[in-house]
């Protein structure tokens, strides 16, 4: 590392006055709250953007604030502020408690599932501290990626490369005795690249993220990833045949499996959606509370959501209601076994919270979220899955996708995709589309490989919007007898 880069451009995290959160809890109780919680946060990070090889702007942010939530005779209210003095906090608490009281004639009677209180202090170790890496080194990485794209000699209509890193320290406390401190660094790289060949264009976006220091960014070799993507897009545009349509067998690579499992398993298993709490925002779920035990997929389908994976983008050990995290088995051998819960949805359905309550920042309410959601690997290789197909396609990654607000009707348009003939990958194809309903998707899986990859995303939910870091993925899977259609050619 060059000497100038050893200089600290920012601290890992900014000093926080924990007493303010303790003060908030005491004050809320004094003014009539039956339950009170506070999240004191300090986040410091930076971001860099290269457009068509030209640095646009660099940015850094320091966020300090406190978010509080109260139950007053089962009525909920919240107050969030970045004015961190006791007078302002007390004024805000009084307003919030008055709000809860004023809503009594029409408020929902909210209860929280009983959970143990915890005292914990955990942090992610950074082998190379993000705060030690200067703006010049971060921009240099983006230049390096751009250079690698240029070396492919492929004509690009636009490149958009964005890199950001940040560290968040959070102190959670409530009047049940929990006191949890966490320090988590994160890295995020996002790109769009548009390639043109023979008067046609194709576009690809993707994201990588981690809860690590700079070592993850160094190991990932983003320049090589972009080079591979650009060459694949170019090859498909130049040589790709029109994808076949009709009923065929399909092998989906880990990126496609990741988006499928996130959209059609993770989201509909969020209990707040099932109970209608997000109806006017991200929608509801095709599932109802009585669907635990329902067979949704074939026997080889197993899905887990696990926030405890070290260094994962969706990592945490305690959720934002102070509940201890654990892996959640959403589907076991094709059967729905568990939904994702926070304390209030758990109480409503008579179970324990499984620690899925998350916030992006201090100024948002904790709602039910995924963490790292994946199909559990099987024991076959991807080649074995492919070798079992006479006539089909391999969809390595995708471009357009969407799903309805109940999480049934979904579409994935393949980006890098190939024909499979007699067990072998042959020609590139453009642009196959899977348009399918959730039960059929997971029931048609007859093979699960072991080549697990986890990919990063910023999952949007809540109002105001909370784009929360998650991973999704799994190994390649094989779908039998799926009807394929075409994206726009």
């Amino acid at each position, binding site marked *: 590392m060059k000497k100038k880069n050893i200089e600290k451009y920012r601290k890992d995290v900014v000093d926080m006055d924990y007493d303010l959160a303790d003060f908030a809890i005491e004050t809320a109780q004094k003014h009539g709250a039956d339950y009170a919680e506070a999240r004191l946060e300090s986040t410091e990070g930076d971001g860099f953007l290269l457009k068509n090889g030209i640095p646009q702007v*660099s940015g850094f942010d320091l966020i300090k604030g406190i978010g509080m939530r109260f139950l007053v005779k089962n009525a909920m*209210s919240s107050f969030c502020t970045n004015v961190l003095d006791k007078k302002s906090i007390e004024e805000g608490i009084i307003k919030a408690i008055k709000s809860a009281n004023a809503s009594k004639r029409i408020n929902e009677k909210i209860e929280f599932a009983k959970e143990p209180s915890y005292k914990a202090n955990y942090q992610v170790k950074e082998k190379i501290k993000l705060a030690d890496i200067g703006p010049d080194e971060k921009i240099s990485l983006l230049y390096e990626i751009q250079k690698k794209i240029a070396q492919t000699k492929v004509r690009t209509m636009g490149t958009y490369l964005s890199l950001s890193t940040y560290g968040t320290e959070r102190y959670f406390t409530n009047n049940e005795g929990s006191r949890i401190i966490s320090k988590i660094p994160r890295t995020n790289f996002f790109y769009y690249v*548009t390639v043109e060949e023979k008067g046609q264009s194709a576009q690809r976006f993707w994201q990588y993220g981690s809860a690590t220091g700079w070592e993850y960014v160094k190991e990932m070799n983003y320049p090589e990833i972009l080079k591979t993507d650009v060459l694949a897009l170019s090859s498909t545009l130049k040589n790709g045949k029109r994808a076949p349509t009709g009923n065929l067998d399909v092998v989906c690579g880990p990126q496609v499996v990741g988006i499928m499992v996130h959209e059609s398993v993770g989201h509909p298993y969020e209990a707040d959606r099932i109970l209608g709490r997000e109806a006017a925002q991200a929608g509801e779920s095709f599932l109802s509370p009585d669907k635990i035990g329902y067979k949704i997929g074939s026997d080889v389908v197993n899905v887990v959501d696990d926030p405890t994976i070290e260094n994962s983008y969706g990592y945490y050990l305690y959720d934002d209601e102070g509940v201890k995290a654990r892996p959640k088995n959403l589907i076991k051998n094709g059967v729905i076994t568990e939904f994702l819960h926070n304390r209030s949805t758990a109480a409503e359905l008579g179970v324990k919270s499984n620690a899925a309550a998350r916030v992006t920042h201090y100024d948002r309410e904790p709602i039910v979220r995924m963490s790292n959601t994946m199909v559990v690997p099987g024991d076959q290789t991807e080649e074995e899955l492919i070798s079992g197909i006479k006539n089909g396609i391999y969809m390595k990654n995708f471009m357009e996708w969407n799903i309805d607000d109940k999480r049934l009707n979904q579409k994935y348009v393949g980006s890098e995709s190939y024909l499979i003939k007699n067990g072998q990958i042959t020609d590139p194809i453009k642009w196959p589309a899977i348009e399918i309903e959730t039960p059929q998707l997971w029931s048609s899986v007859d093979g699960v490989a072991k080549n697990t990859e986890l990919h990063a995303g910023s999952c949007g939910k809540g109002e105001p919007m909370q784009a929360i870091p998650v991973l999704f993925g799994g190994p390649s899977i094989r779908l039998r007898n799926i009807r394929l259609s075409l994206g726009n050619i």
Partner: protein
Amino acid sequence: MKTQKQKADEETNVFGNASKDELPQKEISEYILKRLSKKADDVVLTTVNANKTQIKFVNNKISNITNWNATSIDVFLSSKKRLVTTTMKAFTKEDVDKAIDTLMKFVKNTKPNKEYRGIAKGPFKYQEIEETYDKGFLTIGEKGIDYVEAGINESLKHGAKRVSGVLETTTSNVNLKTNYNIDVDEKGTSLYYSVRSLVDKYASGHQTACARMLKNFSPENAASESAEIAKMSQNPEQGKLGKFDILFAPMPFSNILDHVGQAASIFNVESGLSCLGGKMNKKIGSEKVTLIDDGRLKNGFHSSMFDAEGMPTQRTTIIENGKLKSYLHNTTTAKKYKTKSTGNAGIITPSPNNLIFSTGNQSDEEMISGIKKGIYVTNVWYTRFQNYSTGDFSTIPRDGCFYIENGKIKNPIKGIRISDNLLNVMKMVDSLGKTPQQVYCWEIDTPVTTPKVLVKGLNITKPNTA
């Protein structure tokens, strides 16, 4: 005995909407400007002090009331074409000095943006915009709960079984100052209401209302309309594949127009993320298509006297009678393309303020009566692009969606997707309703004013199992 004013103050305090005449951070921003101006070429400081309340209601009950008190200073700095931004949210002297030191250290270690050509140079005269600030907000108090309760009751009265949504009230004070003789203040108020009524899991309607003034705000109408759609949409049949004429209600068409507005940003054109690249002065839509961006729209949800670099906002015709007339620019991009700023900074990314689409003269009945085989779409979501540069996309109808045959609404349908192209949608615009609505909601970042719009022959797809 409490005075009327004390009572009013107490009521205000419940919802945190009291706005102070003086920005508490004004002195801080002056201090920052003084320090940075010595070392930087261009400096823009935007101080925002906002109080916001959201009442979230779920299944006919208030689920949470959140008050926000947020203060921030956005800083933009350029030095030898090296550009840095930060948002300060911590304001002790130590925090501010540290942020300034970090800024200067940062700017030295970034690389120059060779395309950067500076910011707007003042002074400018700013004209106030009609109906963007309502003193009545200061005493809204518990009326927020009354609005929510009235909306729920209205929806239930019109046949809904479950009603969910949010009501938000915001007051803000913004000060923008630069090192080029700009120092301008603006107060604003806004109301936003989103209501989704459900008769059952597969029969729902969604409507929104947004306004800057209480007198322009009618949540009860939105509630009853959402319930009427929900009631009509019971027992939907599976929709079919094929080409259909689509009658878009204002909410779903705003979703699509928001993407057209974003495509007009010169930043997206340059990034390969726009289907409007290389189409200046070319025909990209039918004669019926005129799209305007108006930063000074009366009662406009995002109206402001100035953009992010202090340039006065304006009315810009993006598309006129189907022909692309202008991209959206800031000072730097305007200089690069030898044109004038359209008052749409973002200093890096110009973006639309309030979009306005053409209004026609047709009633709902007239529009429906001309459709042989079509679909009436009241809401869409999850609009995603296969390729922004070609405009290939799909979007999913959500809530009430109705099959139209031989000029009549036949039955509700479900399970379909509009899979088409943004430019094709503009080309196939056939007729326009006579009642525009300003729409802003969960999936629509730019407020859009549009009537119902009939688009001919769009492609409908669906899953094979359905």
